[in-house]
């Protein structure tokens, strides 16, 4: 189990309660749960890394327990109960300064739990029907929540009384009818305060807490079906969104236009994640496949059938194994290209020189043509 779990670079949670690890370079997938003691109560709803070194995983299960999985040892080391199953399933899970964890249930209770296992240290109420809670990658104390009829709220866990930012509802439409909120997924844009959300009404919104405007600074739409997941590529400037029909697209965050679609998914997308350094995006969903696409040419790179409906996805921040192989070749390829380009430039210089030489000599057109032909032959 240890060897296996060390190999894996993609972790997935399934509806049947199985934690799956996929090693892309070996093209192997492993189940890290006892297949005899399965139950749908243990459906994995949220996944996150317990520590920055990525040696431990946290799994939020549907029965209200948070289980710890050690990727070093390849076994479940700990399980603790964080909240009632009656309060709804986990809509978000994050680790805070190593040992503490943040959980968010669908009822809207965001809680901070310490290692010792007693009651929650801090608790805040983000309203009902929370669909997603995310932690800011820059500031671990900052979390964002949002859900159905529950707009985006950004909280500072040090001051849980009042949210730092509350989104205002969209302007009424041209019939003066209210346009409801339905945040399905949230992402923090790197190196800025901005937050991007995707909604059940197929919109993508960018909010900027730094400005006094509480309505979105950018509104975009994609498709006709609810958007269920989003991911932000490492490069920035774009967002990857997926909907319930399995359409995944890269949207540009400058104008909100579609840059391109990622083809292949047959069923609703449940989770998307971009790799921290490589231009890769992984998606999983109800069609039981893990798909890895390249963000550069949007081509599918990997397709892994994992037998159960998948609910969540986590990528290791080290280079994916396939990426390592690919990365090495990618590292080599640009050099080769540069060399090729150098050669091209050399050739061009030669030609230019000779052209100049021909220009200096006032010669007849035929002679020039002949000379050029000679050059081509010489090259």
């Amino acid at each position, binding site marked *: 189990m240890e060897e296996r779990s060390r190999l894996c670079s993609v972790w997935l949670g399934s509806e049947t309660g199985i934690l799956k690890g996929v090693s892309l370079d070996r093209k192997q997938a492993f189940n890290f749960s006892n297949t005899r003691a399965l139950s749908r109560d243990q459906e994995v709803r949220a996944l996150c890394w317990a520590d920055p070194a990525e040696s431990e995983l946290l799994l939020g299960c549907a029965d209200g327990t948070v289980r710890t999985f050690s990727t070093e040892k390849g076994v479940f080391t700990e399980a603790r109960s964080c909240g009632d199953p009656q309060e709804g399933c986990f809509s978000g899970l994050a680790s805070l300064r190593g040992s503490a964890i943040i959980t968010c249930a669908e009822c809207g209770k965001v809680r901070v739990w310490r290692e010792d296992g007693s009651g929650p240290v801090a608790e805040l109420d983000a309203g009902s029907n929370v669909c997603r809670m995310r932690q800011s990658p820059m500031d671990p104390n900052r979390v964002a929540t949002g859900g159905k009829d529950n707009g985006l709220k950004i909280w500072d866990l040090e001051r849980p009384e009042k949210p730092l930012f509350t989104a205002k509802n969209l302007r009424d439409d041209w019939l003066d009818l209210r346009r409801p909120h339905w945040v399905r997924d949230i992402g923090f844009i790197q190196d800025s305060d901005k937050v991007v959300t995707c909604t059940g009404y197929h919109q993508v919104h960018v909010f900027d807490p730094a400005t006094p405007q509480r309505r979105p600074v950018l509104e975009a739409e994609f498709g006709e079906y609810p958007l269920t997941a989003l991911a932000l590529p490492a490069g920035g400037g774009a967002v990857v969104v997926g909907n319930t*029909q399995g359409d995944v697209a890269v949207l540009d965050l400058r104008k909100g236009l579609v840059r391109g679609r990622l083809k292949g998914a047959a069923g609703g997308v449940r989770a998307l994640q971009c790799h921290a350094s490589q231009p890769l995006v992984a998606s999983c969903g109800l069609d*039981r496949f893990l798909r890895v696409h390249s963000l550069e040419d949007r081509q599918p790179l990997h397709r892994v059938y994992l037998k*159960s409906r998948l609910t969540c996805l986590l990528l290791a921040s080290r280079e994916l194994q396939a990426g390592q192989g690919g990365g090495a070749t990618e590292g080599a390829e640009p050099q080769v290209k540069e060399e090729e380009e150098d050669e091209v430039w050399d050739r061009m210089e030669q030609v230019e020189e000779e052209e100049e030489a021909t220009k200096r000599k006032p010669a007849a057109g035929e002679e020039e043509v002949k000379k050029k032909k000679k050059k081509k032959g010489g090259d």
Partner: protein
Amino acid sequence: MDITEVPTEKGSKKKKKSMKAKTKVKNMEVKEESSAAENQADPTTAFPPTFSVSEIKNKQRRHLMFMKFKQEKRKQKLQLKKKRRKEREALGDKAPPKEVPKTIENQRVFDETAVDPEDEEVAFDEGTDEFSAYFNGLTNPKVLITTSDRPRGRTVRFCEQLASVIPNAHVYYRRGLALKRIIPQCVARDFTYMMVINQDRLVPNGLVLCHLPDGPTAHFKVSSVRVRKEIKRRGKEPTEHYPEVILNNFTTRLGHSIGRLFAALFPQNPQFVGRQVATFHNQRDFIFFRFHRYIFKNEKKVGIQELGPRFTLKLRSLQKGTFDSKYGEYEWVLKRHEMDACRRKFQL
């Protein structure tokens, strides 16, 4: 000088003209000769290796040559066939076994989702899905059949005949009600299925099959519907006995889900006295439905009699949960031109 030059020029022109005329005549002759030669050579035309019939400009000629080309090809094929048959006859029993003809089904692209019956994980997934209550014998199927608004013509008869095939089925008028409002009422009345038949221009063309109380919902395209009256050599009206169900060729994970969806429409204990069989046969992702009565004539022979109706289904989408086409999550959606780009790839 000028005067002298003019006549020479004229003369030269005349000469040229005459020359041209002569050459024309010659050309004509040559053409005639060549066409005659071609006519003579026609019965044994042999094309140069890079010759293409489509390069011929004359349409009639091209047609003629093409016909000849085809005849030639056919002749060769027949000869080859004859030769092979003779060889086989000569070899007798030692003849190599006949080659299996290539069809797009036996050339099917490998599908990694094909279900292995010994797979624990898939078995668990299927054992705890929405149909597990039926397969564990906890519920009995009860089906509501309705249509789109204002059904006309064959749709009405088709619904009635479906209700005679499926035991414990009830046909209701739609009365302009929204499906999302019907579903809670169905659940309250212990229905396990809701079946909606849509029609376009008096012809049934869609089927929504929604398993209750918590999904899944499948959407099919319906084609070539034949109601009982339109079937030749049909038997008498079916009896009320529970039919046997045959599900053919549902091999992939998606196919298994669809097969279970159909299986759960019928009661689990067929009444063999009725000798009636409902068949769902999947071939190239089209599901053919037939309803037969069989009889054992003697120990070797079985006679079957079609009872109707017959129709063909093609899966459009499979949605998780009860009918919600706007906000529901789809487990599988047919994406045309993306999924059916390869003719040898099948989904079910």
